[in-house]
């Protein structure tokens, strides 16, 4: 599978990111950019550490390391925790009370797309951990008729599942803390709402990337196990090999794992830039441009 090649994956990531830059344009924004950048760098480091440590032979690549998968989730937990404290400590001066017309819940400043994507990513992580754990041993999966293969069992799944639950809970707490405060003045409601929407977008991106990084790695690892085979050689007859029960899914799993990693890295690049983006080619002519010309 071509995408399994790391160089091809890097090239595809860059191409998709370039396409994103071409087809969308940044919206001027200053709020939360520095925080987003620091988070993106930390998550990129968390994304690269397991591979880098393996390449540098800092640890035995095939030995069990609990942090190999949930490192990005740990970063997400810390960053979201800091964000909750920052939002909670922000001094908000209420100059003129505003009668609230609409109910402000934790989801109020998030779009349906953000909520659906975040929910789907969490569900995918939870399902992957539970299904993989339920169908395997602690760290290995048995190959029919003998042998076993390293696998994403409970040893990896439990820390990832725990981390994913923590990230989801903290993201909801952060969104609630973002929505809760009263507005300063009636005239500032629109502006403050826009700031809260941007902060909610930042929270979603942090949670989404923290979930996508281990999900991609886990699916890739499961796909890797699926392509493993056991065999026996019978003198004079030949060698016979057989794979796992789901070996036919090896290619789709490897593709899905790599695609998820690519999506995670592109989301990280967007977080690094920090500015929200909108479609560059709008079907509606720009009124200001028309007036200027």
């Amino acid at each position, binding site marked *: 599978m071509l995408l399994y090649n790391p160089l091809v994956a890097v090239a595809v990531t860059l191409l998709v990111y370039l396409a994103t830059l071409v087809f969308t344009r940044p919206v001027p924004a200053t709020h939360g950019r520095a925080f987003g950048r620091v988070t993106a760098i930390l998550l990129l480091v968390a994304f690269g550490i397991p591979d880098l440590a393996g390449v540098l032979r800092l640890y035995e690549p095939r030995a069990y390391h609990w942090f190999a998968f949930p490192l990005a989730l740990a970063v997400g937990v810390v960053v979201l925790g800091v964000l909750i404290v920052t939002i909670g400590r922000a001094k908000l001066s209420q100059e003129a*009370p505003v*009668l*609230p*017309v609409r*109910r402000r819940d934790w989801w109020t400043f998030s779009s349906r797309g953000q909520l659906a994507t975040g929910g789907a990513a969490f569900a995918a992580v939870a399902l992957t951990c539970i299904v993989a754990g339920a169908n395997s041993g602690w760290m290995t999966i048995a190959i029919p008729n003998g042998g076993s293969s390293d696998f994403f069992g409970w040893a990896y799944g439990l820390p990832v599942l725990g981390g994913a639950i923590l990230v989801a809970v903290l993201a909801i707490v952060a969104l609630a803390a973002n929505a809760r405060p*009263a507005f300063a003045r009636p005239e500032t409601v629109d502006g403050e709402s826009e700031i809260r929407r941007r902060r909610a977008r930042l929270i979603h991106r942090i949670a989404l990337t923290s979930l996508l990084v281990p999900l991609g790695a886990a699916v890739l690892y499961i796909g890797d196990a699926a392509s493993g085979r056991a065999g026996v050689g019978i003198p004079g007859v030949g060698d016979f090999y057989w794979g796992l029960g789901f070996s036919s899914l090896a290619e789709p799993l490897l593709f899905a794992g790599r695609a998820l990693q690519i999506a995670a890295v592109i989301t990280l690049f967007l977080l690094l830039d920090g500015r929200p983006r909108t479609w560059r080619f709008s079907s*509606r002519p720009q009124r*200001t441009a028309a007036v200027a010309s």
Partner: protein
Amino acid sequence: MSTPPQSSAEIYEQFRGLITSGELGAGERLPTVRQVARDLGVALGTAARAYKMLESDHLVVSRTGAGTTVAADSARLSKDAVVQIRKLVASARANDDSLDDVISAVRTAWR
């Protein structure tokens, strides 16, 4: 809404105005009592009394778990219509469309 309401009667009056003017649609959820109290800087009991007054006038309906919603008979517009109008206004403002143009387009679409 020049002066912020401070008493339960004032809070009641303001919500009544929002419902009868069509700013809040039928079936639309009102903010929680806690949110109203926090946003207006009043005691929880003051906001709760205002909600009781709205309920006793059949302007809102309170159900456990569903919160407080605008009563179907008291609102001028449906919740869907009010939500769509808010979206239309936000979109028109974002695109620098004038109020007259938008109203004219709505009138045309109405025919």
